């Protein structure tokens, strides 16, 4: 039976939402053991969160001082040491995993499956290409360690309530000094996290300004939703870049996604395809967003959104 090592995503303080989804993906590999590695300093609080994910056999904590901030160049040599004895090395396909895992694969001298979206067999996987406009089935040799980032929108988060043992481990890996953390300008954390929120309200270019985006925030706050945005809205400076949903931003799978004033470029649609219910509000009846929407409403967003917010009060 095989063993899976998942590298837990975190921002230095808290466990990210990707780890629990990777555990679900790992479960489909038919592995005997699923270990979750937390490389952080301090690692305790993050490891305690990780230990609660059901399905995890063990949490490994590597608490070197250099791990205070997740820098791929610093973490990768440690992951390589940890990875000995595992057939699979997984991490979430968010900026943490996308930064780290290809470096790990490079050091291990193997390839990588990016955005693994389904497990077809122990060595056969599906992943999207062309912004999700095609899905390929790829096979990796059974005797090569499989390094993969997991497309989190494709897997539900494993439930909490578990109590996996936590083991503090050391790695002897020599770490480079050529990469140094300077600062993190963190986004506003008062709202639900975009990547894991069950409801997301997104705004597009049609909002017209950062000021006007307030009506999106108001609606989101009214129903406890996270706020997202199209690339156009981010490029125009209405909202920070970490709100971008789409091929090059975040890929999400909320129960409810409301696209407001978003025309629906292919690159945006790829980020929302896994939403259970998509609602589109747009004044242009021809907007491509209506092709994927479950419920559409044509009209002026500046009238509709306040009315919707009021009605939901």
């Amino acid at each position, binding site marked *: 039976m095989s063993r899976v090592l998942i590298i837990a995503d975190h921002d230095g303080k808290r466990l990210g939402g990707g780890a629990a989804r990777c555990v679900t993906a790992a479960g489909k590999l038919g592995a005997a053991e699923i270990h979750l590695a937390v490389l952080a300093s301090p690692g305790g609080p993050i490891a305690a969160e990780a230990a609660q994910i059901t399905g995890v056999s063990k949490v490994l904590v590597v608490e070197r001082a250099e791990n205070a901030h997740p820098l791929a160049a610093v973490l990768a040599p440690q992951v390589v040491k940890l990875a000995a004895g595992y057939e699979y090395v997984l991490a979430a396909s968010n900026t943490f995993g996308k*930064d780290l895992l290809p470096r790990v694969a490079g050091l291990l001298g193997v390839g990588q499956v990016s955005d693994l979206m389904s497990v077809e067999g122990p060595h056969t996987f599906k992943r999207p290409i062309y912004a999700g406009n095609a*899905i390929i089935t790829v096979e990796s040799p059974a005797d090569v360690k499989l390094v993969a980032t997991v497309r989190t929108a494709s897997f539900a988060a494993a439930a909490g309530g578990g109590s996996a043992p936590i083991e503090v481990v050391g790695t002897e890996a020599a770490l480079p000094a050529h990469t*140094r953390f300077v*600062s993190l300008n*963190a986004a506003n954390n008062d709202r639900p996290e975009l990547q894991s929120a069950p409801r997301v309200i997104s705004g597009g270019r049609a909002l017209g300004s950062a000021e006007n985006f307030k009506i999106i925030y108001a609606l989101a706050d009214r129903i406890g939703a996270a706020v997202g945005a199209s690339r156009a809205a981010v490029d125009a400076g209405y909202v920070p870049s*970490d709100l971008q949903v789409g091929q090059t931003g975040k890929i999400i799978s909320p129960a409810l996604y409301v696209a407001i004033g978003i025309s629906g470029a292919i690159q945006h649609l790829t980020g929302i395809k896994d939403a259970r219910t998509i609602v589109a509000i747009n004044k242009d009846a021809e907007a491509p967003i209506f092709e994927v929407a479950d419920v559409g409403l044509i009209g002026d967003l500046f009238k509709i959104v306040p009315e919707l917010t009021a009605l939901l009060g």
Partner: protein
Amino acid sequence: MKILVGVKRVVDYNVRVRVKPDGSGVALDGVKMSINPFDEIALEEALRIRERGQATEVIAVAIGPEEVQTQLRSALAMGADRAILVKCDAAVEPRDVARTLLAVIGQEGIGLAILGKQAIDDDAGQTGQMLAALWDRPQVSFASKIDIKDGVAVAMREVDSGIETIEVDLPAVITSDLRLNEPRYIKLPDIMKAKKKPLAITDMATLGVSLAPQFKVLKTDAPPQRARGIMVKDVPELVAELKKRGVLS
């Protein structure tokens, strides 16, 4: 300092690709091809660094068949000083791309490599980080701002929790995010000038790289389609519909 920029020929981002009915891949015949948009951003950044006097030469490197010369000529027209085509007709996995670029880096004495953060065809997003690993140098992935000074690059990165700033010693690999810059338009005289710029053609064997593909693509499917939705006429109807579907209480 010499800067290497990776250039990949991909299906133009405006094209909606179609999967072939027999599942053997996507239909590429007669489809418009362009430089991967992230690579254009990478190239633009390299040109700006050179224009600030912080680099001496920008070299555009591509791997692929003969036709990739078209994209390399565009890169030269944008302002790259010269180009290298590593001829290869087979599909090349990111790991082999990284190994090939590393060979070019060794040959050319590169001080900075700037690549796109992902190619919009395979969406793998691996090459830059793999190259940095093989080169044993720092990586800055998803860069949205780069400042170079005294052998150090200070860069902002777009990460899920906000904007991170890190500092790396050069040489390094940087991968470009969307908002790093806005690539310049190519003007006609530049296209004429580009025809005279050097474009060297080499191959894997000459660089001492042998392809070692790991993955086998068994089939290519079209994505599942969402069922056709409904239109509502006003806000109360919208709310009623969402309540009916159980997504709002």
